């Protein structure tokens, strides 16, 4: 395996600017024409616990993270202690020499297993437990060490900008760590300064001082470490247009594009960032409000020509789903975003939308469960739950996105499905997608089509007998749906079984007719939704190994496939996107011809594997799973598949990497 990329990591206490610095680093690299994959890991905590951000750069497309760190930028002792051993030999560590005498055992936030592992390594190498010993251990492994006395340099920056407060200056150590990294890599100083100015554009004075700090770091590195450590990072000239996208935002933008005009939510990690993104952009630009450019049009008139999305923070997730369903009844494309614990509360509401045939979208950001589980960590443990949430039987559609390109277009699709089949749709994404930042080709909004299904608005001809038969069975199961407020369309909704008007009835014949009507919509979806929206297939048809997976493991698998190919191991990959209705025929066709099937999933039991067997009778004999809360890296997928191909793997390979 030959990696052709560079992996940089920064860490620090939560609230100390780790995100900001990673964002500056990633944007500076991305605007220099490099491909970027960024991944954020953090604790369920406001301030003080350790968080880190890993940014991978390459001239080629990146879809995943790796475990190896080429350069570790630190400005606190905990980051050094936790990650120094992850840095590869011949890699680099940047650290603050002022921390040299801090002891590993005095870091209160480091968990015992991680601490004991490190102190064990130190003592078996005859070293003490101070940061200088950690550094020494890395040095012995061939890691290049760069001491940057941040505060000393920053004091000079402070003199230049008339800032003497030490605490103000200390706030810039994160930017110093970024700038030192770039300086050691020989990256263009101006590009870095631009990225810093952009980051702080709302505070010009802060922006200039931080740009000054970048200059000072470059000066220091030039003087002290001229030549860096032999690894150069250079911008790549490109004419391609690229976006740098974060998961939550990709979904947020697509929701507005899809015409979502009511979003409800109760705060929960990692879903609420999306709702906040929407709330910050609640006034919506519309095509043809070109009046925007017309100075004759007053501001009030201008604002009247805009659209709006009502983003409502509710008292709980029960209110979130039921409010969204209420919106759905009025013909508004309505959604709620949540994670596992919140989705658990939505189960009853989901069934109500099912029996009343109301379109509603639930964006389900999976995280580590059960219960509160690992609230800020990753898992794909809710596939079975999404399939079965709610009592009784009703149709639902479930679409699982594999990356941020899919997440964007899928967001529009789920609203189309919801309205076409008049039923709840669950969009399965996860923490790994929500908190990754990726360079992508621009989204093509011209590819997007809005399909509203059998929606009735305005005034209807008075129906025969004066009443509208909202739930009258049809050959497809889909009946015309008047929005609340439609003249001549009065009907009733009830969570009880109901007749065509929507009134309660327990009549057994009617019950059969209504069950068949509702459930037949799933068959319709199964017939209508094209295969390309339901599955992806990568690699040669006749590969000796077939990988099967769903969701955000896609990136790690595709990147691993390239390395496997270099080793002469040929595999193909079936990614299942539409979980329900399940693409049974196609999956059967592919897997019944497969020589060896390997199911790869971010959960304990291999939930998709079980579903495949349930739907196709094809047993899965080989699993690669992970459930430690950290997303799969392409390296571990590569190694595990290689082990399988060599015939040396246990039936269930459990991946364990990640800090």
């Amino acid at each position: 395996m030959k990696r052709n990329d560079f992996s940089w990591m920064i860490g620090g206490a939560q609230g100390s600017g780790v995100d900001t610095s990673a964002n500056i680093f990633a944007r500076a690299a991305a605007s220099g024409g490099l491909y970027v994959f960024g991944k954020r890991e953090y604790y369920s905590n406001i301030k003080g616990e350790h968080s880190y951000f890993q940014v991978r750069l390459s001239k080629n497309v990146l879809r995943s993270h790796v475990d190896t760190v080429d350069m570790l930028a630190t400005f606190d002792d905990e980051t050094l202690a936790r990650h120094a051993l992850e840095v590869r030999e011949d890699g680099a560590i940047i650290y603050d020499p002022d921390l040299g005498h801090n002891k590993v055992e005095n870091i209160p936030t480091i968990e015992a297993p991680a601490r004991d592992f490190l102190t064990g390594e130190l003592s078996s190498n005859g070293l003490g437990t101070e940061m200088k010993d950690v550094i020494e251990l890395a040095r012995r492994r061939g890691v290049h060490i760069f001491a940057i006395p941040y505060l000393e340099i920053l004091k000079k920056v402070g003199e230049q900008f008339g800032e003497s407060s030490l605490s103000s200056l200390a706030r810039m150590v994160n930017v110093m760590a970024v700038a030192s990294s770039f300086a050691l890599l020989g990256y263009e100083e101006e590009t870095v300064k631009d990225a810093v100015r952009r980051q702080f554009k709302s505070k010009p004075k802060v922006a200039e001082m931080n740009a000054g700090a970048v200059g000072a770091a470059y000066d220091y590195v030039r003087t002290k470490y001229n030549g860096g450590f032999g690894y150069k990072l250079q911008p790549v000239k490109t004419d391609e247009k690229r976006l740098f996208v974060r998961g939550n935002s990709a979904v947020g933008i697509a929701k507005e594009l899809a015409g979502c005009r009511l979003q409800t939510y109760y705060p929960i990690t990692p879903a609420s960032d999306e709702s906040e993104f929407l709330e910050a952009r609640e006034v919506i630009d519309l095509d043809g409000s070109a009046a925007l450019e017309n100075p004759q049009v007053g501001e009030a008139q201008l604002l009247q020509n805009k659209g709006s999305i009502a983003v409502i923070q509710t008292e709980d997730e029960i209110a979130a789903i039921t409010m969204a369903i209420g919106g759905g009844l009025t013909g508004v494309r309505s959604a709620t975003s949540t994670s596992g614990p919140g989705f658990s509360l939505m189960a009853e509401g989901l069934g109500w939308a099912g029996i009343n045939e109301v379109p509603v979208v639930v964006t389900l950001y999976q995280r580590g469960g059960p219960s509160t589980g690992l609230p800020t960590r990753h898992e794909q443990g809710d596939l079975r739950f999404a399939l079965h949430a709610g009592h009784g039987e009703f149709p639902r559609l479930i679409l699982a996105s594999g990356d941020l390109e899919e997440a964007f277009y899928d967001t529009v699709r789920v609203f189309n499905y919801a309205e076409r089949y008049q039923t709840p749709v669950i969009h399965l994404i996860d923490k790994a997608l929500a908190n990754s930042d990726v360079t992508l080709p621009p989204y093509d909004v011209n590819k997007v089509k809005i399909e509203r299904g059998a929606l009735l608005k305005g005034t209807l001809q008075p129906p025969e007998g004066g009443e509208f038969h909202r739930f009258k069975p049809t050959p497809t199961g889909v009946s015309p749906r008047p929005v609340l407020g439609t003249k001549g369309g009065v009907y009733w909704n009830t969570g009880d079984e109901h007749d065509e008007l929507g009134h309660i009835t327990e009549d057994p014949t009617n019950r059969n007719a209504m069950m068949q009507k509702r459930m037949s919509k799933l068959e319709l979806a199964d017939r209508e939704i094209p295969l390309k929206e339901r599955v992806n297939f990568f690699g040669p048809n006749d590969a000796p190994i077939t990988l099967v997976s769903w969701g955000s493991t896609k990136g790690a698998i595709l990147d691993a496939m390239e390395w496997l190919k270099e080793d002469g191991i040929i595999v193909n990959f079936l990614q299942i996107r539409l979980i329900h209705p399940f693409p049974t025929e196609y999956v059967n066709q592919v897997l019944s011809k497969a020589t060896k099937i390997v199911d790869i999933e971010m959960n304990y039991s291999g939930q998709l594997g079980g579903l495949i067997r349930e739907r196709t009778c094809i047993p899965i004999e080989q699993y690669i799973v992970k459930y430690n809360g950290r997303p799969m890296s392409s390296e571990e997928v590569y190694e595990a598949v290689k082990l399988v191909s060599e015939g040396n793997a246990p039936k269930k390979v459990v991946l364990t990497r990640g800090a």
Partner: protein
Amino acid sequence: MALKLSELKTEAHNDWCPGCGDFGILNAVQMALAEMSIDPSNTVIVSGIGCSGKVPHFIKTYGVHTLHGRSLPFATGIKLANPKLEVIAAGGDGDGMGIGAGHFVNSGRRNVDMAYIVFDNGVYGLTKGQASPTLKLGVKTKSLPKPNINQGINPILLALAAGYTFIARGYAYDVRHLKDLIRRAIQHKGFAFVDVLQPCPTYNDVTTKEYWAGEGHLDIEGKVVPRTYKLEEGGYDGVVHTGSDEEVARKIQQAVSKSFEFGDHTPLGVFYQNEHIPTFEERLTARMPSYGSNPPALQEIAHEDGTPLTNVQKMLDEIRVT
């Protein structure tokens, strides 16, 4: 053209017990809607679960019979998606102050412009008479194996604490008075709560129709004295007129004090009304000027050929890097 009462009735079979207070409330709602000549196709009745949950099926407007305790969030979603609809929520005291108590409280914070009628009978009738949130401590209604072990909620006081801007109490068998209250509640700008004393003839044998009529409650001359009285008849004025802080505080205090009168001397009428608090819709319009005139349900989202009407260019520009 006035709306006839008969035009608001449906064919749906009504299976409430004979003599149920729910009939009085249903009549009062229909009378109020007819009197106001509401447009049935622009009106939505939203209910929860229980006997009261069936009420939308008997009224010929759009009806949304929801889940136990959830009438308010459903109704809120409907109203905020389309503020031009007339939205009336209804439910029992178990629905609103038991399983749905969280929504009851938080709806006060929002002040969405709609009305909420609570069928308050002290029992869970449809499940055969268990104690519900407003039943007082130690009371033993017919089907309870033991006297009620919980204290009763004071709905008026709870609504005041939660920030409701219209708080009233009616009585199911005083249909005309109740009709007027419901009408005022619908016309109120903001979230209006009407607590309706509703005898359950089958399971509540304590606060019965006879009880409220004054059975066993005699004055010195031995004359039966009803256990309810009208606030307005004693000169009580619950309305906040100027909206000054001092006036609001005074009106809330008098309503708090009245909320503790219950049993032999139970007030009916408007405890408190304050239209000086902005509605949730007004708060949204302040942030999004087109929301009021062009709310979510009226917005077009696609061109005729299905391409989106939304222009996300600005958002995409924010994340452009090359």
